[in-house]
C-alpha cells in the first residue's frame, strides 16, 4: 500500500469503518512508514479531543419548551385509544375533573401553580386509562435504566418496600410541556406518582401542597425537582418523600 492510499484509508481505520482486509494492509503500511504513523497518532489525538462533552451543546430549556409547545394537543397525549373510548363511554367523573383542572390551570398565570396543576393532571391521567406504567417492575435496577435515552435526566429510583411503599414501575409523562420521569409506587391500594424533572427554578425546602383534593409533597435535590402526588393523607406522603430523599442522600 502506498502513502497516498494510506492517507485516505487511515481515517476509516480511526473511525472503525474499514473491513478487516484493508485494515490489515493499512496497519502494515503504518508500521513501516513513520510519516503516516505520525499522522495516525495525530488523528487519534484529534479524535479524542473532539469527543469531549464540552464540544457538544445542550439545547436551551426554552427552545425545548417552544418545540414541545408547538406540537398539537400535548395534554391529550397520555390516554390510549382504549382509555379515551372508555372515558367517552362512561362519561366518567374523572374526565370532568380533568377538564375542570385544565380550565383552572390555563387561567392561572403563576408558573409554580401551573406546574402543580400539570402534576395533578398527569396523576389523574395515569389513573384514568391503562397508562399508569410503561415499564412494570418492582426492581429499581430495571426501572432506573429504562429511563436512559428517554429523558435528559437520570432520575433516582429507590426501593422503599421495607418502608411500606412498593415500587411498581415507571413511565415518561409531560409536565409544563416537558418530558419528565414518573416513578410509580403503591401504598396499600393507593397510587403515588413521583415526578422527577430537571430543576428550572430555584432550590426550595420541601413543602406539602393541596390541589383538587390531592396531596403533593414537593422538594428539590441538587439539580432535580421532585413532586410526589397521591390521594393518601399528607402525613404518609410526607413520610414517603422523606424516606425517598434520605435514601437518595445516603446513596442507596
Amino acid at each position, binding site marked *: 500500500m502506498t502513502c*497516498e492510499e494510506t*492517507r*485516505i484509508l487511515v*481515517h*476509516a481505520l480511526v*473511525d472503525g*469503518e474499514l473491513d478487516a482486509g484493508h485494515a490489515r494492509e493499512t496497519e502494515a503500511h503504518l508500521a513501516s512508514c*513513520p*510519516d503516516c504513523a*505520525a*499522522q495516525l*497518532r*495525530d*488523528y487519534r*489525538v*484529534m*479524535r*479524542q*479531543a*473532539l*469527543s*469531549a462533552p*464540552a*464540544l*457538544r*451543546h*445542550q*439545547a*436551551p430549556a426554552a*427552545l*425545548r419548551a*417552544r*418545540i*414541545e409547545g*408547538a*406540537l*398539537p*394537543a*400535548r395534554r*391529550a*397525549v397520555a390516554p390510549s*385509544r382504549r382509555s*379515551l373510548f372508555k372515558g*367517552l363511554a362512561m362519561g366518567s367523573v374523572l374526565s370532568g375533573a380533568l377538564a375542570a383542572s385544565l380550565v383552572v390551570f390555563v387561567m392561572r398565570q403563576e408558573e409554580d401553580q401551573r406546574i402543580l396543576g400539570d402534576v395533578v393532571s398527569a396523576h389523574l391521567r395515569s389513573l384514568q386509562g391503562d397508562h399508569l406504567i410503561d415499564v412494570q417492575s418492582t426492581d429499581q435496577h430495571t426501572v432506573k435504566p429504562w429511563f436512559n*435515552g*428517554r429523558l*435528559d435526566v437520570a432520575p433516582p429510583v429507590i426501593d422503599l418496600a421495607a418502608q411500606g411503599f412498593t415500587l411498581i414501575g415507571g413511565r415518561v409523562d409531560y409536565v409544563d410541556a416537558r*418530558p419528565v420521569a414518573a416513578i410509580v409506587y403503591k401504598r396499600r391500594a393507593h397510587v403515588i406518582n413521583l415526578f422527577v424533572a430537571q430543576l428550572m427554578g430555584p432550590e426550595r425546602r420541601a413543602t406539602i401542597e393541596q390541589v383538587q383534593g390531592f396531596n403533593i409533597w414537593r422538594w428539590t435535590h441538587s439539580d432535580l425537582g421532585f413532586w410526589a402526588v397521591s390521594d393518601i393523607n399528607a402525613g404518609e406522603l410526607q413520610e414517603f418523600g422523606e424516606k425517598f430523599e434520605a435514601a437518595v442522600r445516603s446513596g442507596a
Partner: protein
Amino acid sequence: MAARVEHDDADKARRFRDAALPHLDDVYTLARYLMRSAADADDAVQECYLRAFRHFDGLRGQAAKPWLMAILRNVCRAEFARRSGAAADVADAAEDAAPLWQEPASSPEAAILRQRDSETVHALVAALPEPFREAIVLRDINDLSYREIAEVVGAPIGTVMSRLGRARSLLREAWLKSEHEPQYEERST
C-alpha cells in the same frame, strides 16, 4: 369524528416526541457549528422540528437522528442562501479545487499534535470552511457513521470519506499552527 382526528394528532405528536426529542441536543449541537451563533441555531432547530413534524409520516423505518440532521442542514443552507446568493455552491466548489491527496507542500509530516483544551479545539473546528466543518462535526462530535453522514449530506460514501480526510488534514494543519502561536485564544463566537 372530531375526537378521532384530535386523537390521531395527539398520537402522531406522541410518536414524534418519542422519535425526535431525544436527539434535540445532537441536532442543536450541529446547528451551533453550522450557524455559528446561538440565536441563529435556536431559530434553525425550531424550524427543523416544525418541518420534521409536518413530514413525520414520511419517516418510515429510517433512523430519526440522520433524518433530523438532514432537515436541519437544509434549513441552514436555505438560510445562508437567503442571506447571500450562492454561498453554499462556492463552498462546494472549493472542495473540488483541492482533492484530498494533494497535501499542501508545507504540510508538516512528522510533527506531533499536543492535546489542547476544549475551547481551543472548538475554535479550530469553528474556523474550518464548509463542507469540511460539517463533515468533522457529524463524524467526530455527533458520532454518526459514514453511512449516516452520507444520508445527511446527500452524497455518496466516497465523497464523505474524501471530505472527512480533507477536513482532518485542514484541522491538523490549523492545530499545529496554533501550537506555534502561544497567544492563540478563542475568538468569542
